[in-house]
Every structure is written in structure tokens, then in C-alpha cells.
């Protein structure tokens, strides 16, 4: 315990170590939260975006908080649901009911939305219900938008209704929300008519228990805390889940390469002879192999699974220059008197390697270990940039790549690039800073001022 206490005392004298350790703990907390809040299958399902999971979010919307820095606020995205308001049901005949619901909302934004859609949720056995949708403006004037039979999963895209567009003289989502005085004129820009709007959904159902509900989605220019991408996916999900993946990838790869390399170097130096020779020759051959091209080949020809990539990365990163450095260190320790003493009292080989040889070098290992993590976190991102990221998982690298390939830089969707990039940067820098600080703690020969 006193050792731990002493260590913490020492660490406290390095502010960068304290700051970076705090950031790392926060990242771990986020990672744990992500795994608990969104279980992995759910995360994969959401990120694949099938089954219209993301029908209620706009495309390429900026994060909502960016409005804080704008004088002219961008409209937010909101959904008006039937469940929010009470509907009335009246029986009209033997097998005919009329269900009327009002979707009311107060439009207070200063700009027009991007798009409006109505999604239906219908239940029936054989006979499809008939639905009529009427738009009610703040002054009470009504306009019929849609009448027809609806099936489950059907939607009415208000913004794509050409008849409505012709009647309004403007794009439907503009014309419906604009002051009528300003619409349909060439030289006047339409202005928002703020106030209480309503969407009346009248459904004629022909079966007992048949129900119709719907929701109106008004797509704005901003959404959520992280915005959305080109497939309407909420970036918050991807960024949140990217945290555990990045940490896991970095940690596992570093643990695998440093610990295996360390143990192998220890065995090689201890046993010497042909064991050492083989290890040395493998290292030399491995240095000739091109690291990234091999990873790309494995990804292209074989598998992109994150586990396969991890295994290949570890296999290629064990026999490197680092192993030679470890070997040099072990060589020095091997001849020290305490090892000789251990040998004299008859300690076994494995005892000497694991109890005497390796612990002696661990102070050198720990900083290297911490500095190595960001390297692998960024390697995952690099593979994603080359299109070799795991096909199912949301990762920071994949978001960054999507943004890059989706022309985020050309079209000004900077949030899309900056969010994953800054997270990568924070993770990389904090591990790296901690590593450099630990280096100074454990290797006081080069302690800075």
C-alpha cells in the first residue's frame, strides 16, 4: 500500500499526468456508460440504419448547441405524435368508425424547416383504413393535403407533394408555414408565420380494433448533441460507441504487442543459443515485411473483422525494433549478481524469467505501454480511412472517413469531421501525455525540470 501511496504522491507532482489521467478515467466512464446504455447488438442495429430507424432525423444536421453561437438561429427538428394528443372515436355504421386526431404544434422557429413527413402506424386485419389529412393554419383556415388508404409503414412526404407545391407556389414545407401574404410572389421572400398549427388526421376504419396513428416530423437544420450524418444517423450513437471500441482496440493491441514482445525477449535472452538466434532472425525478416500493405491485403482479401485485424496487428508488431531494445536491456540484467544468486540457489528458468528478469524491466515497459496505446487507436482510424474498418461497428475512424468521403470538408459540414477528430485527438494526447510523464517518473535519469 505504501508503494501505491508513494507512487501517487510522485505522480501528483506532474500536472500533465494528473490532467491526462483524469481525461482517461472520463473516457473509460463514457465507454462503460455506452456499453450499458446501448447494448452492442442494439448499437450495431442502430448504426446499420435498416428498417427506417432514422426516419425521424434530418440528413447532415448540425448539433443543436451550435445555435448558441448563431445570431440567426437554425430551425430545430421536432416530432409531433398522436400519443401526445387525445383522439376521438365515433361509430358511423356497422363496421365503420371515424377516428379523429389533432397533431398540434407551436412553430416558433425563425426559418423554414428542411422537409416535412407524415408517418403512419396502422393496424388492421384485411381492410385498409382510409385517412384524410388536413392542415390547419394559425388563423383556422384548413387545407386538405392527403386522402387515401394506408398500409403499415407508409408515409406521406409533404415536401414531395407536387400538386401541393403547385397550389402553394412554394415548396410545400415553406408554403404551409409561411405568411400567405408573402408566398407565391417572385420578388418577395416568404416569411415564417409563427403560431399554433395543427394537422388533423381523420381515419375511417372498417374493422373492430383497427387503429391509425401517425406522427409528423418537421426536419430542421440542427439535431441532438452531435448532429447527424448523410444517412440521417445520430452521430451521438456512433461517437458514444466509438469510445469503448477505440479504448479496447488500443489497449488490447498494446497489451498484446508489449507483453508478448517482452516475454519473448526475456526467453530469448535467458536461454540464448538457438532460441535467441531464431527470435533474432524472425525479427529481421519481420522488419522487411511492409506493415500497412499486409494489413490492407488481409482486410481486402480475407476479413475486416476487428478481431482478425487485431490479431494480425499483434502478430506483426511483436518482432520489431522494440524487441531488440528489450533484448538489449535484458542482456544487461542477465549478468547482474542477483540473477547469479538465484541461479546458485537453484531457481527454475521460469522463476528467474518471470520473478527476477521481467520485473526488473517493467518500469521501462509501463511508459512505453501507455505511449503505445494512441498509436493503435489511430491505426484503427487509419484502417477505416482506407475502407478497412470493421463493417458492423461504429468507430470514430469510420465516422471520420464517412465525413471525408461524404465531402464534409467541401460542403462545410465541419462538425462531422471535427467531432470524431477531436475525440481521437483527446484520447491520443491524454495517453501520450500520461506516458511521457510516467517515463519521467520511472526513468529519473532523464527527469525534466
Amino acid at each position, binding site marked *: 500500500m505504501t508503494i501505491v501511496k508513494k507512487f501517487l504522491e510522485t505522480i501528483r507532482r506532474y500536472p500533465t499526468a494528473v490532467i491526462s489521467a483524469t481525461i482517461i478515467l472520463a473516457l473509460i466512464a463514457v465507454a462503460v456508460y455506452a456499453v450499458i446504455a446501448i447494448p452492442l447488438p442494439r448499437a450495431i442495429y442502430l448504426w446499420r440504419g435498416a428498417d427506417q430507424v432514422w426516419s425521424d432525423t434530418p440528413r447532415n444536421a448540425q448539433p443543436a448547441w451550435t445555435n448558441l453561437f448563431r445570431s440567426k438561429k437554425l430551425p430545430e427538428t421536432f416530432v409531433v405524435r398522436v400519443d401526445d394528443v387525445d383522439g376521438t372515436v365515433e361509430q358511423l355504421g356497422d363496421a365503420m368508425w371515424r377516428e379523429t386526431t389533432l397533431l398540434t404544434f407551436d412553430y416558433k422557429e425563425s426559418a423554414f424547416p428542411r422537409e416535412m413527413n407524415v408517418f403512419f402506424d396502422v393496424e388492421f386485419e384485411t381492410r385498409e383504413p382510409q385517412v384524410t389529412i388536413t392542415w390547419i393554419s394559425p388563423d383556422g383556415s384548413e387545407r386538405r393535403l392527403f386522402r387515401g388508404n394506408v398500409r403499415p409503414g407508409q408515409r406521406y412526404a409533404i415536401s414531395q407533394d407536387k400538386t401541393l407545391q403547385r397550389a402553394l407556389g412554394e415548396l410545400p414545407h415553406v408554403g404551409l408555414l409561411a405568411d400567405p401574404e408573402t408566398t407565391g410572389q417572385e420578388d418577395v421572400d416568404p416569411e415564417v408565420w409563427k403560431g399554433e398549427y395543427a394537422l388533423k388526421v381523420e381515419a375511417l376504419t372498417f374493422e373492430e380494433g383497427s387503429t391509425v396513428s401517425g406522427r409528423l416530423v418537421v426536419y430542421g437544420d440542427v439535431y441532438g448533441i452531435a448532429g447527424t450524418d448523410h444517412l440521417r444517423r445520430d452521430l451521438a450513437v456512433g461517437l458514444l460507441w466509438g469510445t469503448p471500441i477505440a479504448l479496447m482496440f488500443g489497449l488490447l493491441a498494446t497489451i498484446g504487442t508489449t507483453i508478448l514482445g517482452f516475454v519473448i525477449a526475456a526467453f530469448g535472452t535467458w536461454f540464448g543459443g538457438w532460441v535467441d538466434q531464431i527470435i533474432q532472425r524472425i525479427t529481421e525478416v519481420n522488419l522487411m515485411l511492409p506493415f500497412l500493405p499486409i494489413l490492407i*491485403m488481409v482486410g481486402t482479401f480475407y476479413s475486416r473483422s476487428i478481431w482478425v485485424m487485431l490479431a494480425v496487428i499483434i502478430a506483426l508488431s511483436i518482432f520489431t525494433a522494440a524487441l531488440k531494445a528489450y533484448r538489449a536491456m535484458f542482456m544487461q540484467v542477465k549478468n547482474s549478481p542477483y540473477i547469479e544468486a538465484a541461479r546458485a540457489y537453484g531457481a527454475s528458468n521460469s522463476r528467474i524469467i518471470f520473478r527476477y528478469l521481467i520485473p526488473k524491466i517493467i518500469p521501462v515497459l509501463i511508459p512505453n505501454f501507455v505511449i503505445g496505446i494512441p498509436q493503435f487507436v489511430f491505426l484503427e482510424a487509419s484502417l477505416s480511412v482506407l475502407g478497412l474498418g470493421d463493417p458492423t461497428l461504429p468507430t470514430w475512424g469510420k465516422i471520420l472517413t464517412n465525413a471525408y468521403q461524404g465531402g464534409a470538408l467541401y460542403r462545410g459540414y465541419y462538425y462531422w469531421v471535427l467531432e470524431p477528430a477531436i475525440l481521437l485527438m483527446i484520447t491520443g494526447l491524454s495517453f501520450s501525455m500520461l506516458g511521457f510523464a510516467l517515463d519521467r517518473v520511472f526513468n529519473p535519469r532523464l527527469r525534466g525540470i
Partner: protein
Amino acid sequence: MAEQPARTPEETPEKTVTRGLSRTVGKFARYTAVRGIALLITVAIGVYISIWIANMGGYVDKIRKAQIAEAVGIQFRGPQFRDMTPSERRILMEEQKEREYKRLGLDKPFLGRSFSYLANALTLSLGRTERMTSDTGSRQVRAVLLERLPTTLVLFGTANLLTFFGSLFISLFLSRRYGSFLDRAAVALAPMSAAPPWFYGIFLILIFASIAGILPYGGMLDAPPPETTLGYALSVLKHMVLPLIAWMLGTLAIAVYARRTFFLIHSSEDYVELAKAKGLRSNTIERRYILRPTLPTIITQFALTLVFAWQGAIITETVFQWPGLGRLLWQAIGLFEVPVIIGSVVIFAYLLALSVFLLDILYAMIDPRVKLGAEGQS
């Protein structure tokens, strides 16, 4: 090492000198030969492993056969084959497929072919590409690779040399001012290199191309390319600015940190302290007592810097759309273009082995501490 023969009394001192010299030359020749052969074997094994990986142990053959079958199928869908009976057409298709398999050597088992690949690669007869062509239309692997070499060397040669000499001078400067504000700042900046150059590249494109609009997003030349040589050079230079800065941001900080540590260790040696005590000028101390003993390490790093510049950088080239060898290699992998992949790997392996070999010999000649003779006895 051969045993020292006992010197016979009638030998004159001169004879001893010549014999000593010839023994040294003999030892040296043997050392060179052993080292050369060892490196050659290493290269061969490395290239052979790459051949297996590039073919996924023969799995790529299946992919290529399927691609050929599909292409032949499409070829025989044309109107000129409509009059044939299905069986006639099938025979023709089979023949065509066999011809194509034969052309690509797919009719022989992979194991046998892997050795002929190896022999061809090691003799640098890189052969012809399967699908890729150079911009001039050549199908020689050599032409395809050579065409991209200058663009890669212009960018990454400059970038690596800048990093190398930049870090050398900055770290020398810093080690002289150990503990000063600048020194501490450099140490604090070292974690910056945790992020790779392409990552900074995206930020730089965002700032200088998207927002400021003063530098190009990527590529190597303006469209249309300038007519004059000067205009051409200026255009290339303009496109090089962002990749170069990105490369510096990603590599310089750690290089400075490592060299600074290296120089600090060497400037705390006793002989340096003695030189200081003698009152020598700091310039002289730096040149004679710090730089000279560390020269072998610096030369090694310099040689490796040049070798690695050859490979280019796949991702940095991708992010900046730079038409270099890295991107070529990436495209080749995407097209299962094994000859180009192997060609690139073997040239890199040879360059690396050659520089290691030359450095070994150089050390054996200039550094008395490097022992000649049996290797691996460090």
C-alpha cells in the same frame, strides 16, 4: 574466429604487419560475405512471405478465376454468338477461360508458382501487370512503378529530409539549452506525434482549403497544368505545402524529443565533461565530442529515412490525393494486382537490405568497437 597461430621466431616484424593486414582483409571479406548472404536470405524469406500473403495462400486464385469466368460469360453474350448451340458456346467459353488461366498461370498449382514468383522477384524481373497500366499505357510493372517514383520522392523525400535535418538542428539547439523554456516546450509538445500525419492533414485541409480557401484540397497540379516549367514547379510546390506541414506536425515533435534525449545522454559522458572543464568552446565540444561519436547512429537513421521515403505513405497520399507509390500500392491491392504488390515489396526489401549491408560495412571499417567475425555474439 580462427585461432591465433603461434608466431615463429624467424618472422620479421614487417612480415607480421603484412600478415596482420592480410588477415584483417580476409576477415573483412568473410564478414562481408556472411553478412551479405544472411541479408539475402532474409530478403528472400520476407519476399516469399509477402508472396503468400499477397495471394492469401492461393485464395486470391479463386477470386481471380471467378472474375475471369464472369468476364468470359459477359464476352459470350454478344450477338455474334447467338447462332451457336449452347454446347458449342460452352466449349468455346471453356477454351477461352483455359487460355486466360494459362496466361495468368492459374492452371498450375500455387505452391509451384510461388517459387517462380520468388525467383522472378529476387532477380528483379518484375514482369507484366495483369490489369493495371501506367499512364502511358505500358503494362510493365517496372514502368508502372517508375512512373510514380518521382512524385513520391518529391513529396516524401522532401518531407523526410526536412524532419531529419529539422529535428537534428532543433535537438542540438535544445540540448545546449537544457531546461530552458524552449526545451520544456519541446518536451511538452512531444505527445503531438501520437497522431499520424494524415490526421493533421484533415485539419489542415479544413482550415486552409475549406475555410480560408488559399491552398488546394489535394492533388499535385492545378487543372489545367501550367505550360511553363516555372509555373509547373510553382503549382507542384503549392500542392506540397499542406502535405509537408501535415508530415512535420505528425513526425517532428517525437523526432526532436528522441534526438534531444539522445544528445543529452551523450553530452553527459565523462569526456564531454572533461572537454568542458578544459574550457573548449561549446561549438567545438558539440562538433568533436558529441556529434562525432554519435555519427554512426545519425548516419543509420539518415539511411533508413531515405529508404522509408521510397514507400511513400499510403494514407497521407490518399487523404491528399497525391499520385504516389503509396496510393499505387493501395490501388494494386484493391485490384488483386499481385505483380505490382510484389514488385513494390521486393524493391523496398532490397533497398532496406542494401542500406543495412552498406551501413554494416561502413561501421566495420570506421568503428573499432564493432567486432569483425562471427555475428550474433553481442
